[in-house]
């Protein structure tokens, strides 16, 4: 086996040194009846060229470069080349969690830089070293709020990503943590503030909203914050499209922000690995889940970085830990750090502006189609919008696909009331020409009329 650095002669010699007659001696503790005496029924050992071929073929299935208007929590942005050149350096790729600071300063400093960038973008004081993704991050944020407030009820906007809400439900189910879901305003697509005001009580640990929300609409954060805070509840803002922070006002009024950083240079990769991260106000640091890197000095006075406040974590606190998370998304966080370093202060804004422009153009082009209109009006959007078409989506989807275009996502899957409503996302990589074709096809007569 080409990954194994031993010849049979060396194996034999080592067995002699150990004093074992054969390799089986070393497995003799396994009860006879449970020893596997046959080959595993898995594919035979393949050559490297065969492996590459196998994956090339599966990748090639039906994937002749489509243009996609899909977003909904996973966004395709251009990924600068240097990201992969750098994260593939073995020193980053093949190192473990930086427990031994003396030989892990590279990873540690990069995480410290990541934590800082997340704070700068979200307007929070502190950020952790990453969570699994935006959905588990949101769930952990709610549990964090429960620990902070010692209250046991949460209020959640129905405009939070449906799958995030499903994950939250899975996490809260067994923690006697009832939740109330608040609907959206039918005209603006924002959370229904009146309903929210009624739902938030002195028992409410936190209000969880998403902005831009699942419909691409930016919530009125100050207003939501007032409602939450006046009852002593925390405001948690979930952000699924991190690029929005280049141009959209950060949720300064939030107590905790849970963000999905996939948009920062991370491939779509059919849904993962992505990079969740939790940021919060300084005073909540000891309830923060996940790893934290802190600055310190070594015995010679050199600046250095270490994993810190680990008494919050499972390997010290065990069942009383703030979370059970151990392995996180470090390398993906490094990708995000490099991405943000490349775009920087100006670039992230310019990039967000391009997304804004592309989406505005798409909305204009598609709503010019007879029988198509924006589902929500009157509140600002980033780069996604909900389109209503008189024609049923299945019909025009067929026409778009003939042009190798994947149109908007059908929403009735999660929102039964949203019949014929689809969610369209346009990032900077979608060429105008494709937008025009999409509009043309949308306007075209159904194939079978």
């Amino acid at each position, binding site marked *: *086996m080409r*990954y*194994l650095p031993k010849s049979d002669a*060396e*194996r034999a010699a080592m067995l002699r040194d*150990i004093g074992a007659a054969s390799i089986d001696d070393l*497995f003799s503790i*396994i009860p006879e009846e*449970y020893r596997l005496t046959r*080959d595993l029924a898995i594919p035979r050992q393949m050559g490297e060229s065969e492996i*590459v071929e196998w*994956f*090339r073929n599966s*990748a090639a299935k*039906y*994937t002749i470069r489509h243009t996609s208007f899909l977003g909904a929590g*996973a966004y395709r942005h251009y990924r600068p080349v240097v990201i992969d*050149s750098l994260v593939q350096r*073995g*020193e980053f*790729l093949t*190192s473990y*969690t*930086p427990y*031994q*600071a*003396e*030989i*892990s300063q*590279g*990873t540690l400093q990069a995480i*410290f*830089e990541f934590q*800082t960038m997340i704070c*700068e973008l979200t307007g929070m004081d502190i950020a952790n*070293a*990453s969570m699994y993704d*935006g959905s588990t991050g949101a769930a952990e944020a709610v549990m964090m709020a429960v620990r902070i407030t010692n209250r046991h009820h949460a209020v959640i906007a129905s405009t939070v990503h449906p799958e995030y809400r499903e*994950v939250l439900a899975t996490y809260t189910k067994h923690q006697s943590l009832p939740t109330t879901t608040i609907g959206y305003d039918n005209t603006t697509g924002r959370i229904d503030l009146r309903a929210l005001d009624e739902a938030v009580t002195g028992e409410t640990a936190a209000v969880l909203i998403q902005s831009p929300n699942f419909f691409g609409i930016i919530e009125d954060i100050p207003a939501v914050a007032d409602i939450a805070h006046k009852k002593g509840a925390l405001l948690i803002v979930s952000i699924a499209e991190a690029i929005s922070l280049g*141009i959209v*006002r950060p949720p300064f009024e939030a107590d905790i922000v849970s963000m999905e950083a996939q948009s920062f240079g991370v491939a779509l990769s059919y*849904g993962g690995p992505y990079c969740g991260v939790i940021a919060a106000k300084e005073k909540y640091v000891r309830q923060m889940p996940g*790893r934290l890197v*802190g600055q310190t000095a070594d015995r010679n006075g050199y600046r250095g970085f*270490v994993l810190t406040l680990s008494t919050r974590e*499972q390997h*010290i*606190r065990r069942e009383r830990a703030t979370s059970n998370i*151990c392995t*996180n998304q*470090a390398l993906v966080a*490094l990708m995000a750090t490099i991405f943000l370093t490349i775009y*920087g*202060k100006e*670039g992230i*804004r310019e990039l*967000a502006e391009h997304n804004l*422009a592309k989406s*505005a153009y798409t909305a204009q082009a598609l709503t010019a189609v007879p029988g198509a209109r924006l589902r929500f009006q009157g509140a600002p959007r980033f780069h996604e919008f909900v389109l209503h078409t008189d024609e049923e989506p299945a019909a025009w989807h067929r026409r778009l696909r003939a042009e190798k275009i994947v149109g908007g996502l059908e929403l009735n899957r999660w929102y039964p009331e949203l019949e014929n409503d689809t969610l369209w996302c346009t990032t900077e990589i979608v060429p*105008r020409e494709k937008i025009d074709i999409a509009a043309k096809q949308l306007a075209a007569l159904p194939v079978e009329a």
Partner: protein
Amino acid sequence: MEKEKTEKFIGTRHKVRSHQTQNEALVFEKSSPGKRAYRLAQLDVPAVDPAALLGDAVRSQSGELPELSEIEIIRHFTRLSTWNYAIDLGMYPLGSCTMKYNPRVNELVARIEGLAEAHPYRPDFLAQGQLDVIDLLQECLLEITGMDAITLQPAAGAHGEFTGILLTRAWHESQGNPRRAVLIPDSAHGTNPATAAICGYAVENLKSNSNGGIDLEALTRQVDEQTAALMLTNPSTIGVFENQIHKIADILHAKGALLYMDGANMNALCGKTRPGDFGVDVMHLNLHKTFSTPHGGGGPGCGPVACKAFLEPFLPIPVLVKDANGEKSWNYDRPHSVGRVRAFFGNFGMFVRALAYILANGPDGLRQTTEDAVLNANYIRAKLQDLYDLPYNTPSMHEVVFSDRRQMKNGVRTGDIAKRLIDYGFHPYTVSFPLIVPGALMIEPTESESREELDLFVDAMRQIAREVEENPQVVLDAPHSTRVSRLDETTAARKPILRWRKP
């Protein structure tokens, strides 16, 4: 053989010599307004006025992100990287972490455009290629574990534990009573109790017996109708195979409790024995350990959960299904499901890498891998047991756990020996875990180490033992050969500085 003499060393460092590494400030300290590392494609639609479109929601002040040019970025992260130790540089014997070789072909195939650029909501008929990968990986993992059903959704081991215990709980609920407690041996990894707690279970500590294994009498006494499950790591965290495993399963099953196996140590079992065959009801795997996906400085990982048929109805949604003509799709209509544990389908990029690893090995390769992993651990044990205390002399599988009992006499603890190993060019072993071994040295070489590298490790450990006798101070002050040494963790925790701030 090259030699280096310095007062700091009694013996000889065969593995490393000092050289120079570049200093590098924080990326923010290298920023200056006007530098650029990006250029966007020309905008092909009319530009818009953000303030007009966003109103109050527009961002008035940008965050303090750094402004650098591309070469400075390449240098920044390249320089940082040279401060790291890594598998690619040498042996990384972190017990329980299975720091094995991360094949480069895995990185290549995970980046093939059709796989890397696939949107999770692309319609199933466009995603057949992705679903093929998932399907074959699931088949392989089921065959390797001997279980009946599986989910790849969990993002890491702890996430897998969470999922597995949820399955357990859902099943008990379906039997009318979720039950109260989960039994966890004192040798368990911290994520086990933490997980049980999140799932709403009380944690009952199970004392290990004199061999570091499960005490059957104690177990029999502790298991009752309120016991939901036992979370067992097998081989245990001291690297010992629990050969009473079937009796343990019986005891649990007799009381209607389930046996959960923490599969972090599957690297000791692949192709030699299957948890499904020895009574395990539900378990998780760590693709980032046993199946070679890179640790990447702390993640990402992937923690699939495999279970017996009776737990299948409770798996997280969605579940992969195949129709008559092999067309694959996602099934969300699962009334008994515990629900989702994360968005989308899991860390797909890790599925690709793990499958590439399995295909590169095949049945013979996986078996040989397991044998070499166990061979290496036993080789280290044989070469060091005369100098380091072996708290349990039960046979070792993939890792060996010593204690610092002897070195303690000279005031040297496992943490000091670990730091001294750095001077000899190795990443330290896992320090002071498992808790049942005071001052533990937990050593897992994995199959990826050549005899040459193992001998260098043994030589270093033996030299350190001698230094502990002849000059303990040099060990207590280690490391002596690194850019920074003995960072002040106390101050770091007392006055946390968790971010850079603009001066």
